[in-house]
């Protein structure tokens, strides 16, 4: 089976945040009110944030600023610390390596949220709201089933959500291939952020396929993963600048 992974080349990333916006509109992530955002409740499945180059030293002072910008989706770890702790199986890993989040099952205990060392998970503090014109243009895609509600589906209040590597696009591609009676092709499935990236810094593919871009880039000398010492084996891979 496939093992989906994303490679982000930090040399090419210009921190334009197109990925974050594309993700927001693809996945119906609401913007929160300014006072909520000040509290730190903004929801960005793909987050673009500054990080000091040397974590022990800090960002420095202008003009000797030592910071870089990271763009961060969910890591879709192979040893996810979030899944270990979910009491009801609302988050789980499927055979294709995606860490899924089922809004219909989640009881809102936020154990997964405090357990994630990368901070990729977000919680619906209130009922999500959109301003008038946006509310009419939500993405209708969703992954729905008996007791299952995933992907861009409008979340109820009190559940946890996170980047899904656009699982709805995966399901649609599978369904399309099946309807046309042919095999599924990996290049038919690409998350919104990868599709949008202005600097062509993001790559997506199947690590099980040795010829895919991600497999090739994984072997690059510049490749690294975030927080490797924590033992999570993240599948989102970065290429170092320089």
């Amino acid at each position: 089976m496939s093992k989906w992974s994303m490679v982000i080349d930090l040399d090419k990333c210009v921190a334009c945040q197109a990925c974050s916006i594309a993700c927001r509109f693809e996945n119906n992530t609401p913007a929160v009110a300014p006072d909520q955002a000040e509290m730190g409740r903004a929801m960005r499945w793909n987050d673009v944030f500054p990080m000091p180059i040397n974590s022990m030293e800090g960002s420095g002072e202008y003009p000797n600023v030592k910071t870089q910008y990271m763009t961060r989706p969910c890591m879709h770890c192979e040893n996810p610390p979030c899944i270990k702790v979910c009491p009801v199986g609302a988050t789980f890993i499927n055979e294709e390596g995606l860490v899924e989040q089922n809004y219909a099952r989640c009881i809102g205990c936020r154990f997964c949220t405090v357990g994630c060392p990368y901070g990729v998970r977000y919680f619906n503090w209130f009922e999500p709201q959109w301003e008038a014109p946006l509310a009419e243009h939500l993405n209708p895609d969703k992954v729905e089933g008996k007791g299952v509600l995933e992907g861009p589906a409008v979340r109820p209040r009190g559940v946890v959500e996170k980047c899904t590597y656009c699982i709805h696009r995966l399901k649609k591609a599978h369904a399309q291939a099946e309807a046309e009676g042919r095999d599924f092709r990996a290049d038919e499935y690409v998350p919104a952020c990868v599709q949008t990236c202005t600097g062509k810094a993001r790559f997506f593919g199947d690590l099980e396929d040795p010829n895919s871009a991600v497999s090739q880039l994984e072997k690059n000398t510049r490749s690294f993963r975030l927080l490797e010492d924590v033992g999570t084996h993240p599948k989102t891979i970065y290429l170092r600048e320089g």
Partner: protein
Amino acid sequence: MRPATSYHPQNKNEAVILAPVRRVTFEERWLWAILLGLMGLGAYAYLTQWNSGLGVTGLNRPVYWGIYITNFVFFIGLAHSGTFISAILRLAGAGWRKPLTRAAEAITLFSLPFGVGSILIDMGRPDRVLNIMFYGRFQSPLLWDITAVSLYLFSSIVFFYLSLLPDIALCRDRLTEAPAWQQKMYKILALGWMGRPEQFERLERVLDGMAIFMTLLVVTVHTVVSWVFGMTVEPGWHTALIGPFFLVGAIFSGTAAVVIVLAILRRVYHMENVLPVSLFNSLRKLLIVFTVAWLYMMIAEFLTASYGGLADEMPVIWQKFTGDFAGLFWTMALAVFVFPILIFVFLGKDHIGWMVTACVLINIGMWIERFVVIVPTETRPRLVSTLMEGMGNYTPSWVEIAITVSLFAGLTLLYVVFTRFFPIVPIWETAEETAETELPPVEPRRKVFGTRQSL
């Protein structure tokens, strides 16, 4: 021949307790000879090491600490037996412990020097041992260790001697047939003890105070020993639980050692009336609690560490569960927990033989446990590149094994010689007046340690 003006409490078992002191048998001299022989072998092994260097051991890179350090931790752990019985149980008011106190404290007293000795043996430059005093840095956990253990040794000697004092006076007065030098020894050591009521009261008060001090000390000592490991950053060692973990293990293995020693004394010196089965039953209940407490510590340690799954920690954990040390680890689990708990719960009541079996298993298992805490961490360092072909293995050499055996032989020898010169059961503490009846809770202010009878 001393005039009978000094007082000793009446004890109907006095004859039985003093019997070993009165004569040394032929078999015993053979035992001493064998033990001395083993110690000689150990001395020869150490001489080899002194001449050639620590290369004669099996130590290597990255396993720089091996069975010498295991012995160190084990012997210090063994030393906790005495303090637990004499001090902690004294504070808890467990009167049944009285016949055991001296036997247990003797274990403490005689194993501490071998613990300290193990460290000296392990040093690369033992001739520079005084540098610790001249250039000692209190930032180092080793220095806390040395301070704590020295204080413990000193206090144990004082505590032991004080509780021995009335019995030395008894020996001085009763053992009229002993050789002149032995009588002189008793006379000097008795410090003029006459058995007056105020002397006894003063003694009891000092022992009460020391009991509190020793309890605090025992908690500190083994915690500080564990912090030699805990204050590093090595996976498997740098764990906050290591303090309580070692402490519970020490009291556990110490109490098990007390059971073994008591059973041997009981059999060899025919002390069935002095050390009745009820003592073993009380110890059995304590050991059940300790066994379960040890299991709890292991669960706390391994459940937390393995659930976290940190990349540095997991290789060490796998080494213990399924790797090179799996055999030792699971043997330890069987020897320390599975068999003992089954024996204690189902077979141990009133059956000294089974108790001793379980306790022997516990002590062997606890030695392995120390080994399994120390060595696997060293075999899986973070930078895996240090582990090249053939590295990360450890096999003790004959030198280490000989020295280890000689340490145990030394402990046994000191103990056996002691029992031939001093009564191993405190005659004055097990005397009749304070023995049988349980004092009622009269006026609470006047409650005294050691009045409750059985557990």
